[in-house]
């Protein structure tokens, strides 16, 4: 059981963290791949994966935002 206010706060902090964390670490790690022993093709494949994760993350955030909106509109106070 969780109160509406606490749930919204939790969702908000998830949104903030999710919004920034993946693209940021993605960018840093992509740069460091330059120094790796991986072949260009392997590096490219890893970059593709990073980007796919970023896209998935962006979509999750959109959904998370929608859930937040629904909870905000709802009259229920306990979940």
């Amino acid at each position, binding site marked *: 059981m969780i109160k509406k206010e606490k749930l919204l706060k939790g969702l908000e902090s998830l949104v*903030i963290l999710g*919004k920034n964390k993946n693209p940021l*670490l993605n*960018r840093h790690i992509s*740069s460091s791949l330059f120094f790796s022993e991986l072949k260009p093709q392997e590096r490219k494949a890893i970059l*593709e994966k990073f980007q796919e994760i970023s*896209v998935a993350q962006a979509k999750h955030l959109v959904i998370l935002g929608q859930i937040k909106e629904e909870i905000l509109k709802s009259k229920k106070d306990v979940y």
Partner: protein
Amino acid sequence: MKIRQEGLIKLAIILSVIVSLVYIAVRTALFLFAEYTAIEKFFASLLVAGDLFIILHSTGYAVNIIKMYSGKKKESYPGYESLKGKLPSVAILVAARHEPKDILENTFVTLKNINYENKRIYFLDDSSDEKYTREADELCRDYSLILFRRQIRHGAKAGIINDCLKALTEDYVVIFDADQNPLPEFLNVLVPIIEKDKKLAYIQTPQFYSNIEESRVARASAFQQAVFYEYICEGKSSGGAMFCCGTNVIFRREALMDVGGLDESTVTEDFATSVKFHAAGWKSLYYNHVYAFGIGPKDLTGYFKQQFRWATGTISVFKKVVWRLLTKPFSLSPFQWWEYLLSGSYYLVGLAFFILMICPIAYLLFKIPSFFANPEVYFLAFVPYFILSMSVFYFILIRRHYRAKDLFVGQLLATITFPVYIHGAISAILGRKPAFGVTGKVRSSALGYLSIWPQILMIFINFIAFTWGINRFLYERDAAVLVNGVWTLYYFAVLCSVFYFNTAKDIEIPCKRVAKRLKFEYKVLEEGKKYPRDTWKECLSIFFPERLNADDLIMVKLYVPGTSDVVIFEASVIWSSAIKGLGGYYTDLGVTVISERDKETLRKVLGK
């Protein structure tokens, strides 16, 4: 095979040290025994001092590499499981003064994301400007940080950390600069190591600039960092002389309290405090794995500011190290003394560069000899030393997957910084203390020509000397004139790189225009977030109802021209330039298409 290769490397290094010593011995003998005038002897003594400085530091580098290869192979460090669920408490400190909010926000996001339960994050806000204090309050609220401020400012970053230390109770203290973004595993890896050895005062991890694709200065300074954090730090650590670099470091709080906190008397408090740790019998360790990413200076303004601060601070500590050596010679081991004296004097390199530059000029323009040898002796002594030492330097770094071109650009940047190093050295010797400032990281800007007058003046003088040297050679046919002429041409070319670095432009990403007047719909998924750019790039000329910005993530529905096909894809905006039109913007847009499948589809439809 690997052992044999390492043996060969050690042999090459020893050979390079031997030829360096032969070179300096020949130089010194010629200086001592040749009969010249007082002014010529003066220039010669400067040149010998400059050469000796460079050779001492090259030898120091060689010793570090040998030390590293001779050290323990594949040290086994305790893992996270060794903590057996009892997690020591850790205080993570980030000190900042007037840092941009977005830089800090990135740092706190990654700090919150560290996988370690028993941690507390402290934001040490030293800002005096109301805008920054308000932003600090907002950050603390959004990221549940513990805010620490002080009433009376003293000792810059070291001062506020020391003030905060008094109130801390945690077992360990981690310090990050405001622009460092650690990986989630940072504490899980380092805490077990420091927990196992109770005499270990701190563990230093490398600094890594990840904005190497953003500007030439950032890229070159990243490679300078790499030279330091690879073999030099590993060698220092093997000999128990690794000093702390001020960020990405975990301290035992007890050790910090034992030495009275960070040294506030200098801007390089990290270096100064390390001497105290080692003198008090504490140990240090360098853990050569990148666990935090940072942002390097994007332009010469930021770079020169950073280097001036480091030069002044380090040389001011060097004075103290020399004094300590004279008064307490047994407080450190011989290897520790050697390393501290080398590191402390490194920033005198600006003076050494300057001397090496003016000697050929003095010879060509004023016929003042400083080498005191005929060209045959010069070639016999200098060429083996130069070729072997440079080959060893490049070879061992290329072995670690660095490119010679990048390392060379790093060296160019260091050379054009010589006036800054000289200024820093003089300030330190005179006891002036530079103000602690933020290294510019947000956008790049070019310095005015007045700010780089020493480099421009030396370019001009080298050019004049070279031209005059050609004239002299045509008449005199003297090989010594030719040798000095080559050196002025070399310094002329090297110094001209100041124009290569001094640009407001970021690195341009080549882009091929593929289509015009495309009909499409789009949706911005996320604004202003950077995505990896090392992928397929396309330019589109499109009419937008709004202005799009670089780094926006967009979802696009593209109507393929001349067909009824529609392609939907996600892309990251690399750049956009917009001209306002009726009801929107005529926009040229460079994008990175995210998914491989979308790229294939787009290639097919746009290729039609």
